[in-house]
């Protein structure tokens, strides 16, 4: 009985790709924790971690080991299943988004087989990201509620209302972008931003949608629960919020999911607005280097953009003070959503009457 007619080579190829992407995003997230402490140290005129290895480079490993070794405490009055499900969901949704990001151009092997550096080219790529992001809040909500602690509950409610409010502005700012691309597939959007200059204007969507990018960036901060919008874990009012009752690796998952999310949202911003793996003069470079080197170069360019965004997230965290909750809501509903709507209208008018 031939139950499943599948191409084994295809499955193996995708499995390898998924493994590499997962390991890569986990590794970068791991070193983002180290970089965050280093950046904080530099900005506050300190040295930062410098004991484990040269420049404290082994610090993330030590931290991970410490989290694994700590005693695991599940509060007696918590809802046990949901308490464990919370961090699992947070980590799962953080890792899922990377499936639709194109990490590099297609690459032809010597036997003519084309390898795509994208796990799944689905034609609703951006909507998939939205779906996963909108599920991300369940990890925080369930964890906060199941802890049976009023600080955790308050924090999870804050996180949920913040996420829902900012998803609206984020969606509307993306609609303006999608009106220009005419496609929801990330692969298609990246290939439209080929090179840097098309003879009339920049090809990268940042230069066509600067306001849309600004709104998207602010919303990304809010969706990630990063400072200045980290109201959900405001330690001065909520004692660390939703992960107050967590210990050991479950706490580690929550903390780590934030860094994986930061990596993935940087990748998405680079892909949507900053040309993904495209770079200036790429056609000239492609003619002079072998294909495998060109692909590696493209991946490297994307990684550079991503690391730039991650550093930006960190600079902002150590620069701006935390918003108050009513300020956060006012910014979301009364500034960003109208601004995004105006941006959408202007984009529509320009497309209709100017570009035709």
């Amino acid at each position: 009985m031939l139950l499943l007619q599948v191409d084994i080579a295809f499955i193996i190829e995708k499995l390898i790709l998924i493994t590499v992407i997962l390991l890569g995003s986990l590794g970068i997230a791991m070193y983002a924790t180290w970089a965050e402490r280093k950046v904080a140290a530099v900005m506050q005129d300190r040295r930062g971690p410098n004991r484990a290895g040269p420049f404290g480079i082994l610090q993330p490993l030590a931290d991970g080991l410490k989290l694994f070794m700590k005693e695991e405490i599940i509060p007696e009055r918590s809802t046990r299943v949901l308490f464990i499900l919370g961090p699992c969901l947070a980590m799962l949704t953080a890792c899922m988004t990377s499936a639709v990001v194109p990490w590099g151009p297609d690459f032809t092997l010597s036997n003519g087989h084309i390898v795509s550096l994208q796990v799944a080219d689905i034609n609703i790529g951006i909507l998939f990201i939205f779906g996963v992001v909108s599920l991300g809040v369940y990890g925080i909500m369930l964890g906060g509620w199941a802890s049976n602690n009023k600080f955790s509950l308050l924090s999870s409610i804050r996180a949920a209302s913040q996420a829902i409010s900012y998803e609206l502005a984020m969606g509307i700012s993306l609609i303006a972008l999608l009106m220009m691309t005419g496609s929801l597939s990330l692969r298609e959007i990246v290939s439209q931003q080929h090179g840097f200059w098309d003879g009339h204007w920049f090809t990268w969507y940042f230069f066509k949608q600067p306001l849309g990018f600004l709104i998207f960036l602010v919303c990304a901060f809010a969706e990630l629960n990063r400072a200045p919008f980290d109201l959900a874990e405001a330690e001065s009012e909520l004692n660390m919020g939703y992960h107050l009752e967590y210990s050991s690796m479950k706490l580690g998952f929550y903390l780590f999911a934030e860094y994986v999310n930061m990596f993935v949202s940087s990748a998405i911003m680079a892909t949507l607005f900053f040309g993904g793996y495209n770079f200036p003069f790429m056609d000239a470079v492609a003619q002079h280097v072998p294909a495998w080197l060109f692909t590696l170069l493209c991946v490297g360019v994307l990684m550079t953009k991503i690391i730039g965004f991650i550093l930006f997230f960190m600079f902002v965290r150590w620069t701006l003070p935390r918003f108050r909750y009513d300020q956060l809501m006012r910014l979301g509903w009364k500034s960003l959503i109208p601004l995004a709507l105006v941006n959408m209208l202007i984009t529509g008018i320009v497309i209709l009457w100017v570009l035709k």
Partner: protein
Amino acid sequence: MGIYEILFWFLTVMAIGCALGVILSRNPVNSVLFLIATFFAISGHYLLLNAQFLAIVNVIVYAGAIMVLFLFVIMLMNLNADVEPQKSRLVQLAGMIAGGVLFLVVLAALRTATLSSLDKASTDIGLIKNLGRVLFTQYVLPFEISSVLFLSAMIGAIVIGKKE
């Protein structure tokens, strides 16, 4: 049985099982979680029917936004068996009869419905491009009327929620 049928049966069992979980679980938070799982199973069915856009929008709108609000309210109300109001026998009986009648109506409608078989080859029928074209040409009037309905619902909610 091909992969199509396997997926269909898996999703069907999941949808019905989770839907039963919604009404059978004592804890309202568990009910909400089961309902979310049901929405996922239904999204899977949409995917099998080549309606990719509907599938993902179902996840975003229902599982991602509406159920978060449900969970929100239930967490704040802190419902449990002690504070649950006891309904009288009469109300329970009325509920049973109303539900049974609804079931009969659905059954009668399903019995006479014409089933058109799915063309598995045309995978682009549910794409956003085709869906948008149909919505804004063939069904433009119902589409616009329903958006006016949503607008009026929003205004109504604001009027009710206003403190005065």
